[in-house]
């Protein structure tokens, strides 16, 4: 089975600081690949390289989309989501707080709607083809809202939702662009145990039903160990371990990195 994402010898230097040092790993379709490591290990930097915020010093990142091998280096800005079909979330919540829950999901379907509406011209004229497309977009949003149980709050401002719901909405919004790869940066941060169990359920659903590969950065080990198919452990920008969740739990290197070594 060919992998969805292959990162090859990725190195990112900021002046003298080596944030990522010769990192290689693969992520598979329909799997959750977790990247863990102590603070400052370079986890978010990996995401920033993947999503075009940083240009890696050396190394390659390939996304395999239906037989095509796409280099992520070539894409920046909106093309990451639009062309490469990589979606991401951030450590802090970045919903559009002054827009309704439904609108937040519709924004993610902007490109399809924009095309269908002839760059808003048909939209202004309210043509039938546009209305149908818009109905489809609304239906898709409703489908996702049903899954996270927020249908009754569709018209409320996203900023008024409880924290846990905002987290889920953010993930679902990323799913609305129909990504091949979903990068989640600490989605469980600040969630209570009940909310984080719901999050696990949502991520499993996405993995199994939507055939999307998930790349996950997380500190909450109950989440990581509960749902990961594959774990990559980073420390000081280097990969120190790679394996299944159980293997990782018992790995000597990983325990040393997190807890330190006896003198």
């Amino acid at each position, binding site marked *: 089975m060919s992998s969805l994402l292959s990162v090859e010898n990725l190195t990112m230097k900021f002046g003298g600081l080596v944030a990522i040092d010769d990192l290689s790993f693969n992520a598979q379709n329909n799997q959750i690949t977790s990247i863990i490591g102590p603070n400052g290990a370079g986890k978010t930097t990996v995401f920033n390289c993947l999503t075009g915020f940083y240009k890696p010093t050396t190394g390659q990142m390939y996304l395999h989309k239906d037989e095509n091998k796409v280099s992520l280096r070539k894409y920046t800005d*909106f093309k990451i*989501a639009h062309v490469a079909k990589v979606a991401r979330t*951030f450590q802090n919540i970045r919903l559009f707080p*002054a827009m309704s829950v439904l609108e937040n999901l519709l924004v993610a379907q*902007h*490109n399809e709607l*924009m095309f269908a*509406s002839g760059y808003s011209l048909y939209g202004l004229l309210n043509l039938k083809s546009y209305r149908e497309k818009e109905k489809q977009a609304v239906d898709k949003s409703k489908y996702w809202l049903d899954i996270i149980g927020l249908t009754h709050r569709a018209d409320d401002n996203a900023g008024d939702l409880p924290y846990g719901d905002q987290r889920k909405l953010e993930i679902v919004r*990323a799913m609305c662009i129909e990504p091949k790869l979903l990068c989640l940066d600490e989605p469980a941060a600040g969630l209570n145990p009940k909310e984080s169990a719901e999050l696990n359920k949502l991520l499993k659903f996405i993995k199994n039903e939507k055939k999307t590969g998930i790349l996950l950065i997380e500190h909450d080990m109950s989440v990581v160990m509960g749902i990961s198919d594959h774990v990559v452990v980073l420390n000081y920008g280097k990969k120190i371990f790679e394996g299944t969740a159980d293997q990782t739990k018992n790995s000597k290197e990983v325990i040393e990195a997190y807890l330190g070594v006896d003198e």
Partner: protein
Amino acid sequence: MEYFIQQLVNGITLGSIYGLIAIGYTMVYGIIGMINFAHGDIFMIGAFVALISFIIFGLIGVALPIILLLVLLIAMLFTACYGWTVEKLAYKPLRGSFRLAPLISALGMSIVLQNYVQVAQGARVKPMQPLFSGGLEFFKNSEFIVTVSYLQIFIVILTIILMGIFTYLITKTDLGRAQRACEQDRTMTALLGINVDRTISITFIIGSSLASVAGMMFVLYYGVIDFYIGFLAGIKAFTAAVLGGIGSLPGAMLGGLLIGLIETMWSGYVSIEYKDVAAFSVLIVVLIFFPTGFLGKPDIEKV
């Protein structure tokens, strides 16, 4: 009483023109957080394009309603091109720069546009013969006859139609949704696959075409223009945008109306010389009590 009504009508007409310009300021501020000081001059360009096309169509001899429609479209098209070019030349290269850089660039662009029109069109004032004549008269039996000219009716109705379309565009269509998304978080909007640069360009295009309509109204209403009209009208419209709450679209319309009314009331009852002073003084007083303007969102920091 009759005199008051007359001033009210005049004020609403003037306020419509200011409101249309103010929308351009407030939209650009909302989406990229800068004051586009060249916007007043875009309005002036719109007025010149309108004047030139009025003269051309007048010479050909087309019927009045068709002239109005054609001039409207031509002025919007040309001025939108100017707005788009200004954004591409003067603001886009500075997108990642510090906040003051595009502001200074905007002031420079304003001077460039003014001088360009001065060189291209000459410095003398350009008159135009009134296209509209007559109007409705009210209170014929009293001492003061209130006249609502057809031109005033035309201006107000056109403004209402444009504001209606515009409000629909921003609140209901996906283009408006993308613009509001850019306003709140540009990075995240890009990560959802939306071309932010294009959305910003469209914002400039819409703002400029609304300003050109205001320019056309100005030509019709005052009958004289020169290359310098953009400065004062721009400052007034900017004041209107701030008064209503910059970044808020209904605020810009409300602010435009208020500035128009204050100006005409002051010239009607106090003195015509100090009408600008009155408009700006009201701004200062309002900002003391409503620092974010009438309809602006107060910036509440969550801790």
